[in-house]
């Protein structure tokens, strides 16, 4: 199981790098789909099966298809992008690297205590299954769940309105 963890982490990081450095936007989308599948694999490893399936359906399915659709629609599948100047790119990479060093340095200090009472009762492994997550979602978080449908309605109306050619 440890080797699966390392393999998925390696896959996620490498394909995330390829998203950033790939010239062609189509290749970026495909590498991003690979990253999402690796992250979904991590969810399965952590026994969050519902989120793994939702991740694949929503991200790798819907969102990435939308990205591909827009790239094809705008006819952008060429690598005609001019690069930023080398100084700006170097500054960006150094800034990201410094942030990563800061984060890792901060995380070295923390120690996360495992909740051992749940482990003893054996409930710890199935919190991510559909049955238990559905119970949590529809009992404690029912109002945010309904509010998210309003959010979707607003997003849909907004997308249609933005996409229209001329608004009277």
């Amino acid at each position, binding site marked *: 199981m440890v080797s699966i963890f390392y393999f998925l982490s390696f896959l996620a990081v490498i394909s*995330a790098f390829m998203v950033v450095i790939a010239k062609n936007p189509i290749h970026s989308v495909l590498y991003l789909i690979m990253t999402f599948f690796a992250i979904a694999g991590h969810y399965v490893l952590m026994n969050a099966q519902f989120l793994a399936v939702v991740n694949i359906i929503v991200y790798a399915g819907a969102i990435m298809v939308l990205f591909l659709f827009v*790239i094809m629609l705008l006819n952008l599948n060429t690598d005609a992008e001019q690069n930023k100047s080398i100084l700006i790119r170097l500054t960006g990479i150094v800034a990201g690297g410094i942030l990563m060093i800061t984060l890792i340095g901060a995380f070295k200090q923390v120690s996360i205590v495992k909740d051992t009472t749940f482990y003893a009762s054996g409930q710890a492994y199935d*919190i991510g299954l559909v049955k238990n997550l559905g119970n949590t*979602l529809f009992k404690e978080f029912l109002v945010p769940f309904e509010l998210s449908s309003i959010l979707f309605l607003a997003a849909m109306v907004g997308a249609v309105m*933005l996409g229209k050619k001329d608004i009277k």
Partner: protein
Amino acid sequence: MENGISTITQIIPPNFYLILSSLLFCIGIIGVLIRRNIIVVFMSIELMLNASNLLMVAFSSYRSDGAAQVFVFFSMVVAAAEVAVGLAIIVMIYRNIHSIDIKELSKLKW
């Protein structure tokens, strides 16, 4: 699952997930900073969102708390809405200025 079955949370220390998520997040930040194609910038933002989702699921399974996974679900909902509106904005920008280079979009810059 019965007791005694070893899961990933017992083998892998949580700091590994912290490091993996911060790596993915920083790659996303570098992508936002160094690319000029607005769609690739948008994809890097998605990458950062996913890194934070991964960390939240990791904390949820290490702490055995289902509420965090529901929160990740809501975060995915918001990301889907954001992508729909954002891509509509990108299409509108392309229709107006015939370019998706963020260099052309610096009118609001001071």
